């Protein structure tokens, strides 16, 4: 059997988690490699969780929040974005390929967009192969 | 094949080293090696870092003399960024350096070296240490502990930290001295000056009188010397001045710090992580043969006492005169490092009091504003263990692109190696040796205060 990546997706209760629900209702298919963790806001996700996931065997980590300007809590997704730019760079510092991390925006009525994000990420990670924890950068 | 005696580790020194004595079939010394076993690579890992952070990183080269690295680096970064600290900024830095010298000298002489003298070189290894002194001479022990602590606490009270300081900053100093602090420091410096005079008397009585002859043969080699002297008077200087390189015959060359590479080369042997600086400008190459050394000079207290034309403070100058009367200039016996150390102790106490009495010491203009820029800066101070050279090159963002460090101790690695060889060769004959003999070989190293 080929490599089946494990991807952690932190989904905001108000948008992407709801979109995932709607994807189900609409029977939209996406790869089974994603494990959704429900959070109240993308701004709740401490970057430590991203790193913790990668260091414990996740092959990819996604944070999915509401479109900018549509945060349920005013500007939580902007905080998530600010952190995200930072995470992307820090992953390099920490020796991980930053392509293993992504942030995206999906509204609650965009199950297609969510499924596409899941599919793209899974494909991307599949091509990259698993994280080598001894040498996460894959040099 | 003969056997190898390994003194591992060399104890009661700062740092990681061992001695390997190779005996031939007859049990005579065939060769000795002073292995410096530790290497951390500061020169490399400071690369890329913002230069203003360097004074706070390089302190970790040595936990005993962190102030020296702190200030040498501060000076180097000042030079690279092209800033000159205001007078009070430089003054406060020098005061801290002097205070750090005080603790360091007490530590070295009394905590590390004295057990050999107070308890004797042949005393049992398990008691031949500062705890042994505590038991054998509790009053003395209490006094030295207190005095060393006082030096440390003076630093800590004024500059926040005694170990791994932070108050020296590019462009000057991070905080001004308050009038009240000045008075307290003056008072405490007076106490330390009294102690330093006592220490020299104590050593003259109990050490030099007793052991001078014993150690005559032990580790004595003939070399040149390197130190720092006042630009105009040629007097002993620790914080700032110009470098003076003296040949064994007493002839001197003076040079400015940033041209040090014209005068000093760094040699590497496969058996030591410690690089061995040598006098490149003598153009005689490098040789560790005690019989025909080449390029070898020494640094540290004895070297400074030898190269200076005098000392600017009265009591120390008096002690220097007495010393020169007895041992000449340059004095070569390794044990005299201890003597010179105590003369220097008096000097630093006197000097610190002198500086504290200058009016500008409480000036609040203590730091010049610096901007990151490309440049090169060499910062040199006299550390307890020798001339300390920090040399940095920065890029446009003021980040380090190149670093070269010559740490005080390293000047003496080659001489120490030679002293060990000299001591071992003269002490071990026909395979006969014991703990006491091995300790005497180590004492040759301890004199240098590595």
């Amino acid at each position, binding site marked *: 059997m080929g490599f089946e990546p494990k991807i952690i997706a932190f989904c905001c209760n108000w948008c992407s988690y709801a979109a995932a629900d709607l994807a189900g209702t609409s029977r939209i298919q996406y790869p089974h490699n994603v494990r959704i963790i429900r959070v109240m806001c993308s701004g709740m996700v401490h*970057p430590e969780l991203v790193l913790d996931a990668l260091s414990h065997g996740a092959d990819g980590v996604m944070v999915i929040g509401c479109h900018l300007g549509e945060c349920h809590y005013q500007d939580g997704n902007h*905080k998530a974005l600010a*952190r995200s*730019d930072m995470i992307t760079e820090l992953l*390099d*510092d920490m*020796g991980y*390929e930053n392509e293993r991390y992504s942030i995206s925006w999906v509204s609650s009525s965009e199950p297609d967009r969510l499924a596409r994000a899941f599919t*793209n990420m899974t494909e991307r990670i599949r091509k990259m192969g698993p994280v080598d924890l001894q040498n996460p*950068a894959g040099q | 094949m003969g056997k*190898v005696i*390994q003194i591992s580790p060399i104890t009661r020194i*700062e740092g*990681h080293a061992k*001695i*390997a004595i190779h005996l031939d079939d007859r049990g005579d010394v065939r060769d000795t*090696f002073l292995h410096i076993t530790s*290497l951390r*690579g500061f020169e*490399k*890992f400071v690369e*890329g870092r*913002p230069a*203003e*952070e360097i004074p706070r990183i390089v302190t970790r080269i040595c*936990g*005993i003399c962190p102030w020296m690295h702190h200030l040498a680096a501060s000076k180097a970064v000042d030079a690279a960024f092209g800033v000159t600290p205001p007078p009070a900024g430089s003054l406060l830095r020098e005061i801290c350096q002097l205070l750090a010298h005080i603790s360091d000298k007490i530590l070295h002489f009394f*905590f590390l070296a004295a057990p050999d003298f107070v308890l004797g070189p042949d005393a049992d290894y*398990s008691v031949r*240490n*500062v*705890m042994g002194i*505590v*038991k054998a001479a509790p009053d003395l*022990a209490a006094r030295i502990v*207190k005095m060393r*602590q006082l030096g440390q606490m003076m630093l*800590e009270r004024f*500059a*926040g*930290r*005694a*170990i*791994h300081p932070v108050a020296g*900053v590019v462009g000057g100093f*991070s*905080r*001004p001295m308050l009038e009240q602090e000045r008075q307290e420091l003056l008072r405490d410096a007076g106490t330390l000056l009294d102690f330093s005079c006592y220490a020299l008397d104590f050593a003259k009585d109990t050490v030099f009188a007793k052991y001078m002859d014993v150690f005559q043969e032990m580790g004595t080699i003939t070399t040149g010397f390197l130190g720092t002297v006042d630009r105009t008077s040629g007097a002993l200087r620790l914080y700032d001045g110009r470098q003076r390189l003296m040949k064994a015959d007493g002839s001197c060359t003076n040079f400015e710090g940033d041209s040090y590479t014209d005068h000093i*080369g760094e040699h*590497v042997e*496969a058996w030591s*992580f410690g*690089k061995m600086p040598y006098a490149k400008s003598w153009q005689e190459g490098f040789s560790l043969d005690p019989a025909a050394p080449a390029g070898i000079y020494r640094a540290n207290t004895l070297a400074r006492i030898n190269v200076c034309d005098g000392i600017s403070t009265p009591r120390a100058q008096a002690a220097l005169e007495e010393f020169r009367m007895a041992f000449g200039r340059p004095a070569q016996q390794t044990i005299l490092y201890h003597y010179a150390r105590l003369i220097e102790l008096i000097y630093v106490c006197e000097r610190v009091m002198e500086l504290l009495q200058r009016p500008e010491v409480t000036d609040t203009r203590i730091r010049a504003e610096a901007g990151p820029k490309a440049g090169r800066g060499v910062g040199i101070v006299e550390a307890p263990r020798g001339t300390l050279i920090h040399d940095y090159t920065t890029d446009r*963002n*003021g980040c380090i692109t190149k*670093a070269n460090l010559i740490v005080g101790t390293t000047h003496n690695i080659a001489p120490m190696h030679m002293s060990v060889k000299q001591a071992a060769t003269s002490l071990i004959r026909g395979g006969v040796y*014991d*703990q006491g003999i*091995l*300790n005497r070989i180590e004492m040759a190293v301890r004199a240098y205060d590595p």
Partner: protein
Amino acid sequence: MAVRAVLEWLNSCSGCEIAILNIGEALIPLVSEHLDIVHAPILMDHKCLGQCGEGSEIEIPEADIGIVSGGVANTEHLEVLLAMREKCRLLIALGTCATHGGIPALMNGQGLGEGIKGVFATSGTDPCSVPDVGVPAALDRVYACDEKVRIDLFLPGCPPNPALIAEVLTAVAQGRDPVQPGKSVCDTCQVLREGKGAVSKVRRFLVNADYNAEEPVQRMRCLLEQGFMCMGPVTAAGCAAAGLPPSCIRVGVPCRGCFGPVRRDGNQMLDMMNALASNGIDFKSVVDRRSLLRFSGAHGLLRQIRTRPVRERG
């Protein structure tokens, strides 16, 4: 009954040992009554390879407690540490090098082997190869002690606070749990704090902080709020002397994180950068963010920057 103690130092600078001495006068009763130190290279002459240099394997005496400073960077450090673990009932990691790699672990940012090669290839050095005779071989990187052996007690600090060392030694001698700080530097920092929101960029420490030395530090605005990178929030408390602010803050200098992360497994760089980014502070204004791991680069946190081909971004 005094407890038998052994001290060793690995990839260290001896600052920890000086910190022990800086316990001051209280040290005398400690070493003469509570502790029976049987091995400590900096202070006494017990040798690892026998007093007459005849041994071939590292010998550490059996002891109730072992105190080890410094991280692990070469085979000799590792041998000594393993011997310590074997012989000591309770093993204490003293100082941030031992607990988190410390400053020397900065080398992990470029690779230990590469770095050592570089040291011997500086322009001032005569041509040579890396010494390898009678000197221990380097490991692949600098490790904290707990990466190699079990550590029973962690006492970070660069240097550790003498008062805390005394507390730990006394507590161990008395057979109780030592009292150690569990919060960040900010806990002991009394400066004025009003929120970080006004700061948009981190300034380099090229000018002094705004404060009046005549006034108590309580009147000084938080250095982070003055725009300086101060790592107090992500650094374990402990540097402050009793009743005083943190040692660097006290002299108007921002914290650089020398006690390592607040939680032992924390990541100072990540936590600090995150706190900045979350507060809308441009994280790119931090000139050298990897320096935020300057005290805690072991545990695989500080790694060699990889060079890899730029991938097409979709």
